[in-house]
């Protein structure tokens, strides 16, 4: 019970797209408490104007990601004890995205890049044709499976220094989506995908810093997916130039 009497010192970013600052709050500490619990407690007990985004609270929807002590995290599944430094936590909006208000970012650039990377299904058959049989042990299917648990939380996008330095860079999530579809036997847009990911903002911008894979809350590996795209685009280039 003693820990219930303690208080956390929490700095929360308050502001909009133009300016802002960190505002300090004191929040009761509990044995089992997530970062999202802390943000919700502030909004419910101290300042109802605090804006933030969440939905499922169980790590499935990907909407509650924020910068916690300078590191991108899914806040609903991040225990306070994991992030706490000297009894302090700073909570800010996701990096590399425009801020709408306080902790809520505008995710449009992130999702626009999914579309730009051809991260959409390109059907190989019509609804009148029989469904294609997929061998679950096929090497390409196994490769595609590695990326399908992405929850679009944008943690990788916020962690990436290449995104920070190059506004056109498609980013780890969109490129991993492209690699997943490239390996999907039911997708008929392989060349469109390779063309989309080999342009100026494409996979070859990646410096393999690995922050995307390091921070992915679902333990996915966008760096490996991007390396796969680099190999596929190079192979395609040499084939076409023959």
């Amino acid at each position, binding site marked *: 019970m003693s820990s219930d009497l303690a208080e956390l010192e929490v700095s929360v970013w308050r502001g909009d797209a133009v300016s802002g600052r960190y505002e300090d709050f004191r929040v009761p500490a509990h044995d089992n408490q997530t970062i999202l619990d802390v943000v919700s407690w502030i909004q419910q007990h101290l300042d109802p104007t605090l804006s933030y985004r969440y939905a499922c609270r169980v790590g499935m929807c990907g909407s509650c990601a924020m910068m916690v002590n300078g590191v991108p995290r899914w806040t609903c599944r991040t225990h306070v004890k994991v992030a706490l430094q000297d009894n302090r936590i700073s909570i800010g909006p996701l990096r590399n995205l425009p801020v709408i208000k306080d902790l809520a970012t505008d995710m449009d650039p992130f999702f626009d890049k999914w579309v730009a990377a051809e991260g959409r299904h390109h059907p190989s058959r019509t609804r009148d044709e029989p469904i294609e049989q997929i061998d679950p042990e096929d090497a390409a299917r196994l490769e595609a499976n590695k990326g399908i648990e992405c929850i679009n939380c944008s943690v990788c996008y916020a962690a990436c220094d290449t995104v920070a330095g190059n506004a056109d860079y498609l980013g780890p999530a969109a490129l991993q989506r492209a690699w997943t579809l490239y390996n999907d036997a039911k997708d008929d847009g392989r060349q469109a995908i390779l063309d989309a990911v080999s342009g100026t903002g494409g996979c070859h911008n990646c410096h*393999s*810093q690995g922050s995307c894979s390091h921070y992915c809350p679902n333990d996915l590996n966008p760096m490996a997916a991007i*390396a796969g795209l680099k190999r596929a685009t190079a192979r395609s280039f040499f084939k076409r130039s023959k």
Partner: protein
Amino acid sequence: MMRPHRNHPLWYAFILHRVSGVSLALFLPVHFYTLALALTDPERLDGFFRWTELAVVKFAEFGLVFLLALHMFGGLRLMALEWLPWSDRQKSMAAGAAAVSFLISGVFLLRAI
């Protein structure tokens, strides 16, 4: 202060590769200029060789060999990452590149002093 999100092994591998690459790019013109002294001004080159006998210069050479080896082995890791089938042991390979580089530059230093 370094941004907290950069505090992981592969980001350090990235920055070491970048810093060693830029350092070597700055070193090479000086290196070639010095070598050219053999043709243009041999006496100055002999003076330079005497200067390199200083302990502090030997230690700097150790740093140079370390950066060179680090850039080479780190570069081999990156080429393998981009051209060979994926391996999950990237952190181990980056650590291995640093360890081998330290071994090579350490042997160089022990032979030099």
